[in-house]
Structures are given as C-alpha cells and as structure tokens.
C-alpha cells in the first residue's frame, strides 16, 4: 500500500510507522519542511535542545534507558557537524541512533552552498552506515532501512542526509514492511559446537569468571535474566565493564565489582588469576586489559559477541562464539543442564575463598573527613539515600566522579546506568539525563557530574526547565579537571598543567538564572539534608557539592600495567599483599 506524499511528510510518516515517540532536534534552513510537518501533527513529540551535541546525547540516554532507538533531527552544515561527537559516542558504545540531517538541495550539492557540509563524508567513519537520499521515491525505504540497521546486530548510530528539494518533492511512500532489509541480517544464533566446547570448559574449570559488557544490556532484558541464571546456577563470579553495570545485580551474591583501570582489586585479580575467562558481550577494551602481554596469563578464553570483528581484535580467543548474547546464553544453559549441571565444586569453593581474601582488602576504602566532603563519601550518601528508590536512573559525565559513581553506586537492573564509556565524552551526562527523563517522566534521574564536564553542555539546563524535566544535576565540584590532575600527579611529576577549573560560575545563581533550583553543600554534616532537599524538590536541581580538591581515584591500574600491578591508595593492604603476590602499591 503505497501513497504519494512530500519527502518531509514521509519523514514524519516513517517515524510514526517505526513507533517513534520522541525526536531530539534543532531546526535550521535545510530541515524547515520537516519542521513544518512536525508542527502539523501531535503524535511525535519534539524536544528542542540547545545544541545539537545535546540532541545526540539526549537520544543516547533515551535509547539506553528504553532499549529503543533514539532519533535526532538536525540541519545541514553546523547542525550536522555539532552532532558528530554524539554520533561517535554512540558508535563506540553501540547505542542505536537514527540521525536525520537536512542538506542543501541536490542541485547545489558540491557548490560550497551556504551551510553545506559533506555530512555523509564527515560521518562515514563514525556511523554504522549512512545515506544521502537524492530521490524522494527512495526516501521512505531508506528511512526504514536506517532503523533496521541501527537496531539489528551490534546496534549503532546511522545517519540519513536529506537534501531540501527531496523534502519538498512528492514521491511514493512505502511502509516498513515493504522496505527491503533482508540483506543486513547478522547471525544471532551461536555455533553449537563452540557453545558445547565452552560448556565442557565450564564443567571442569577451577577458577572461572564471567566478564560481562554492554552487549548483555544491548541484547535485551532477557539476556540479563539468563546471565543471572547462569551465574547463580554455576556459582561463577561475575565482573563487568563500565558499560555492562546492572546486567548482573550489584546485590547479587556472585558480584565482585567492576573490573579495569579503576575496577575493584578482587575483580582484577580474578581476571589475572582465572583459568577460564568467559567474555560475554564485552570487547577487551584497553581500559580493561591493561598490558596485553600480561593479560590473564593462565586462562582459556571464550568470547561471545555479535560482532565478528570483536573476536581476536585485541586478545586471542580459544573459543569464539559469534551470536547474540541472549540466544547464546539460552543454548549454553540448555546444553549445560542437559549434560548434568556439572561444575568443579571443590575448585570453585577454593576460588571463592581466595576471592574473599582479596575482598577483605576493602579496596574502595578511603579516609573520610569530618571537615571536608570526600567525593567518595558524597556518592556513598547519594547511593544510600536513593538506592531504594523504585525507579532510579543515573547518568554521568566523564572523569573521577564517573569512576567513583561506578564504584559506589550499585545497579540491580539493566538500562539504569548511562555513561560515556568508549569515547569518554565530557558533556554527555546532562543531555543524557534529559533523554532519560523524557523517556521516564516519573522516574528519579540523577546526573553525577564533574564541574568541568558539566559546563561543556550546561546550556541544556534550558531544555530541562522548558520541558519540566526534574533532572538532578549532582555536581562533584573539586574545582579541578580531577582525572587529568590525578594523572599529572602520578605520571607527570605533579606538574598541574591547566587542570584546574578557574572562574567557575556560582552554580546556585546559575540555577536561578535558568529558572530551576540551586543547592550548595560544602560540609559533610549538611550533606544528607541537602541531598534530601534535592530529591524532594519536584523540578530540576543543580546541586553544587564542594568536595576535597585533591582526592585521587583508586584502585588504579596505570596505563600499560598488568592487572596485578594496581595502585591501591588508602585501602588497608598490610599482610594481604604478601599473600597474593606482586601488587605494587
């Protein structure tokens, strides 16, 4: 059933047919026909951001917290180039985004027209795929294909660039079912022989570990459920990357904390000492592996990933399993159960005894203060006062505060934690919190921010106020580019080159200027009350939490070091280190 309509109308129709409820965007000359169509309907909500980067991160927050693709609409030239950071961020973290950009009319393409940029050229390396649509008759199919590609296989951002004359012209609209999408169909079922080989290893492993990543979350809630079943039935310890937090509950009995550069002592030593490493939907990122040559030296490795290029990219895998995490875990559990639910109980008991010894190090310990708010303490209190909230989502910016949030906040469900992992984009958290709140209007949405990151997209506070989105901006204000300062202290002879935040705004006045609430807190005694005040306030809040300025984030594996060369900082290490080997403090 096809219909004649203008290209601009097709865009709106295609979005409706794809079940899109919200678009994050910013208008301009090259998308005016589409904005005109948006104006004349009420089904799709448009959120006017304050900067196109904000639109992309908001769409990412929306996507991560719902499992649905986020949709972005921007104009040509600067609109599209402003979106590039968010698109790249989504590519690195495998977040499905459909970005629609306006382009100068086809007959002006290549003439350096006003606000012309080679948008498909610029975004080719930072999208999963992109299209320049030159013919209105091809527009509907291309848009449907774009949704298909963004959400199929390893999710990611796609971009459809639509010249203005294509928006004005009339053409044939086809619905999603009529679009050809069959060509792009990554395999989702894992190879049964490979899965069986992994089951055999699980049956005999003495020191296994489940190393889980964002792929578990991307695979859907069913995958997280299966992961829990697998871990709990086998008794295998579970660690996760930054991106995978919440897939296995932080309150679960097999949870040993996040791994990697700022991961827990126990998680990293488990990775180092295991004899079977089962990577589920993670990608052996360098923040995780440390020095490759010393990575998990005594283990057989299995790697479950939907993207064949992740296999053997960084770490050599003994058992590659290409498929969707949910499908693979389902088969894995079936086979393991059919073969008699075997594990090496004795080996596992010893393994857990060893893990408990490592846990006893209490690697996240810090020296608290009664005078100054320690950032870790601030996050502990935020966690304590919000953990039991029935509907809590947390986003972060990038830096020390992000790592402390990962260490001190626990997530018991997937899709509750949004952070910029692969690209490490300062400025992600505020717009992401807006996207999350748009998707979940009644929920408690907190952005754990650093003052420097937060300033990068603070204009989006206007968006929050305009749409009455009660996002809580919890700024851990150390008046420093804390993470940079930490590296300079530890690796550059304490030469603090341009790593402090000077001339910061008065955040309370800034809140007033935006028309929301500002709260400032600089003493530990007042912290709980101040946090409660933030939580009780029905609208958006900027919370300026002034903390100790020179705190470092530990544990830390300095770049290029092995997992067992961790700097522990304040943690009590007496005695334990001698037992467990070469830990350099």
């Amino acid at each position, binding site marked *: 059933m096809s219909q004649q309509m203008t290209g601009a109308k097709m865009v709106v129709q295609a979005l409706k047919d794809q079940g899109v409820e919200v678009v994050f965007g910013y208008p301009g000359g090259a998308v005016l026909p589409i904005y005109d169509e948006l104006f004349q309907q009420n089904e799709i909500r448009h959120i006017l951001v304050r900067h196109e980067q904000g639109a992309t991160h908001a769409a990412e927050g929306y996507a991560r917290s719902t499992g649905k693709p986020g949709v972005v609409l921007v104009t040509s030239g600067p609109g599209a180039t402003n979106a590039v950071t968010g698109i790249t961020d989504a590519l690195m973290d495998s977040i499905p985004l459909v970005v629609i950009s306006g382009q100068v009319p086809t007959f002006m393409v290549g003439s350096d027209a006003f606000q012309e940029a080679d948008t498909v050229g610029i975004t080719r390396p930072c999208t999963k795929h992109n299209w320049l649509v030159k013919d209105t008759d091809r527009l509907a199919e291309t848009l449907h294909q774009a949704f298909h590609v963004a959400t199929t296989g390893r999710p990611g951002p796609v971009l459809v660039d639509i010249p203005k004359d294509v928006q004005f012209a009339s053409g044939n609209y086809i619905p999603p079912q009529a679009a050809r999408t069959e060509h792009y169909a990554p395999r989702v079922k894992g190879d049964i*022989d490979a899965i069986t080989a992994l089951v055999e290893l699980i049956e005999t492993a003495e020191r296994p570990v489940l190393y889980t990543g964002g792929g578990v979350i991307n695979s859907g809630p069913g995958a997280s459920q299966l992961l829990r079943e697998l871990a709990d039935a086998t008794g295998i310890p579970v660690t996760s990357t930054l991106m995978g937090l919440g897939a296995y509950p932080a309150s679960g009995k097999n949870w040993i904390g996040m791994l990697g550069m700022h991961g827990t002592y126990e998680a990293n030593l488990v990775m180092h000492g295991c004899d079977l490493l089962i990577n589920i939907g993670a990608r052996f990122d360098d923040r995780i592996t440390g020095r490759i040559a010393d990575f998990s030296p005594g283990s057989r490795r299995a790697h479950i990933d939907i993207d064949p290029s992740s296999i053997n990219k960084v770490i050599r895998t003994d058992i590659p399993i*290409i498929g969707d995490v949910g499908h693979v875990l389902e088969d894995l559990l079936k086979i393991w159960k059919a073969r008699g639910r075997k594990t090496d109980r004795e080996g596992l008991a010893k393994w857990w005894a060893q893990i408990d010894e490592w846990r006893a190090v209490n690697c996240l310990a810090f020296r608290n203060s009664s005078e100054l708010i320690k950032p870790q303490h601030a996050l502990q209190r935020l966690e304590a006062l919000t953990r039991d909230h029935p509907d809590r989502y947390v986003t972060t910016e990038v830096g020390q505060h992000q790592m402390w949030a990962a260490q001190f906040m626990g997530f018991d469900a997937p899709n509750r934690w949004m952070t910029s992992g692969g690209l490490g984009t300062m400025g992600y958290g505020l717009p992401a919190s807006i996207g999350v709140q748009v998707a979940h209007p009644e929920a408690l949405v907190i952005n754990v921010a650093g003052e420097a990151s937060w300033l990068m997209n603070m204009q989006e506070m206007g968006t929050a106020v305009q749409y009455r989105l009660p996002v809580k901006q919890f700024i851990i204000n150390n008046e420093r580019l804390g993470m940079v300062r930490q590296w300079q202290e530890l690796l550059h002879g304490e030469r603090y080159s341009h790593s402090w935040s000077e001339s910061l705004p008065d955040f309370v006045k800034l809140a007033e200027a935006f028309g929301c609430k500002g709260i400032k807190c600089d003493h530990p005694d007042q912290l709980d009350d101040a946090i409660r005040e933030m939580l009780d306030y029905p609208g958006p809040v900027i919370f300026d939490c002034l903390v100790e300025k020179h705190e470092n984030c530990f544990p830390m594996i300095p770049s290029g070091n092995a997992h067992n060369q961790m700097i522990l900082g304040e943690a009590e290490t007496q005695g334990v280190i001698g037992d467990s080997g070469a830990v350099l403090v």
Partner: protein
Amino acid sequence: MSALKIQQGSSRHSAYDLRDPNAEVIETHTLAVIVDNEPGVLARVIGLFSGRGYNIESLTVAETDHEGHRSRITIVTTGTPQVIDQIKAQLGRMVPVHEVHDLTVEGAHVARELALLKVAGKGDARIEALRLAEIFRANVVDSTLESFVFEMTGAPEKIDAFAELMRPLGLVEIARTGVAALARGV
C-alpha cells in the same frame, strides 16, 4: 574439548586458529569483496583501511552485476595473520558488503593485471624492447618512430619482471590496473 569445526577460510569463526596465532610473519592476501554498487561504498572500504592502518597493495573495482547493482572489489593486502583476519571481519560487517572471499586461503586462484608501458628508444634498444615484448606476449598498441606503448596482461610479478627489463631500454611511463582475481575451478 571438542574440536571446533572451523572451515578453511570461513569468516564465521576466525581462521586465526588455523595458523600460528603469534606469527609475526607478514602475509599477502588477495580478497574479493562483493558489495552493493552504491555511492560511497569505495570510500567506505578505503576509509576502513586508512582509518585502521591496514595496507592496500592494490585495489580494483568495477560493477560486475548490472542487474543486481553489485560490484566486485579485489584487494591485495598485507599483514600478520591476526591483521588479515581483522580486515576480513571489518569488511564483512559493513552494511553494503555481501561477501568477503580470501582467495589466498580458499584455494588456488588466478590473479591478473593489465599494464600499459611506454618505452622510448632508437636502434638496438628499440629492437631489444620489441623482442622482449614478444617473449612476454605484450602487444604493441601504439607506436611512433621513437616509442612503443606495450599492453600486457599477467600476474603482477610478470609485469614487474617485464617493467624491470624495460627500464634500461627506455621505459618512460607505466600504468597498471591493479589485480583482478578469481578462484580456480568451480
């Protein structure tokens, strides 16, 4: 542990396991990549190679299925076994890519390249050039009293050898198409 059935040359599982995983040897592989003939597809493939630091020894592309809008890209690339596998996997996951064949792994194949060589000279050198061209089965496609343009098709090594011989005889310019390759048999 059950032996994994990894098909030779399959990109389903990494063929990495078939070879010495730690080999640092640099191998040369000829890949045939079947793609949708759509705008930007070549830029995508080239961008992949430059963006990830892979080598391109030669690359040829042309539409081979007009009806189906398919092109065949033949890439000769070099790298360690691990890098070659990465290249195949990275190509394979691109949306407009339909098939990736590693002709080097999949069995015997024929590889041919076309070259045009301009050789200028007089007297003995000119005669010698013509004589060698005959031996190499190069055709004369243009001649003046002082020059020839030879056309020759063959394996890249054969063209290299011919070009080497022509150099002292007055080779002025050479144009090469890059390799086109097909697996032998059916």
